[in-house]
C-alpha cells in the first residue's frame, strides 16, 4: 500500500497552517498600528494583506504559500479632525491608517478557523495511516 499520498497530505496541511499563521501576523500588525500616524517616514501606516498562491511543484504540490504581502492602496485613509495633533495639517486634519479594527477581527477569526480546518485535515491523515497499520496486527 502507498502511504505517499498521506504524507503529502500532511505537508499540504502544514503549508496551509503556516500561510494562515503568516496572515494572522499581518492582521495583528494591522490592529497594533491602527492609529499609527508616523511609521518613521512621516507617513501613516497602511494596512497589509497576504497574497496566497498555490504551490505547483515539488513535495508540497497542491499546497499553499504566501507569495507576497502587499500594502492596501484601495481602502481610503481616514481623515480625522485633531488640531492639536503634531501630525495635523494646516486645516487640523490628521491622516489616520486605513485599518478598520472590526474588519481585522473578522479576518482574524476566519484565518484562525481555516488554521483549525487544516489541523483537522492533518489529524485525519494520521488517523487513516494508523488504521492502515492495524492490518499487520
Amino acid at each position, binding site marked *: 500500500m502507498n502511504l505517499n*499520498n498521506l504524507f503529502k497530505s500532511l505537508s499540504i496541511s502544514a503549508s496551509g497552517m503556516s500561510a494562515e499563521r503568516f496572515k494572522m501576523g499581518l492582521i495583528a500588525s494591522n490592529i497594533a498600528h491602527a492609529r499609527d500616524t508616523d511609521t518613521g517616514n512621516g507617513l501613516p501606516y497602511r494596512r497589509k494583506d497576504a497574497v496566497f498562491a498555490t504551490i505547483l511543484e515539488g513535495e508540497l504540490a*497542491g499546497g499553499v504559500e504566501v507569495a507576497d504581502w502587499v500594502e492596501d492602496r484601495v481602502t481610503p485613509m481616514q481623515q480625522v479632525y485633531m488640531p492639536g495633533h503634531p501630525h495635523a495639517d494646516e486645516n487640523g486634519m490628521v491622516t489616520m491608517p486605513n485599518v478598520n479594527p472590526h474588519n481585522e477581527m473578522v479576518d482574524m477569526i476566519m484565518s484562525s478557523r481555516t488554521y483549525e480546518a487544516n489541523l483537522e485535515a492533518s489529524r485525519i491523515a494520521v488517523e487513516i495511516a494508523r488504521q492502515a497499520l492495524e492490518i499487520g496486527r
Partner: protein
Amino acid sequence: MDPLGPNTKMIERALDLAATRHRVIAANIANVETPGYKAKVALFDEELDAAVVREREGVNPRENGNTVVMELEMADMRKNELVYRVFIQSLIQKTRIMRAAISGGGG
C-alpha cells in the same frame, strides 16, 4: 490465485483512491483563500484503472474566483475517512481468515 481472495485488488484500489482523495481535500482546504483556486475532486477512472483528479463542477465561484466550499470539504473528508476505515476492516478480516487457515483454527 491471490491468497487473500479475488477482491483484494479491488480493496487496494479503493484504499489508494481514498488516500488520493484525502490529499486532494487537504489541498482544497489549504487553498480556501487562494484567489482563482478551483476546488478539485479525486475520481476513479475505469478505463485508466487509476484515480484521476478533476475540477469540482457545479460550484459558483466567490468574487476572487475561488470555488472551495469549506463545509463541503469537511463533509467529504469525514465521509472519506469512514470509507477508508470500512475497506481496511475488510482487509483485516481477510487476513484473520488467512491466519485461522494457517494455524488450523486453533488460534
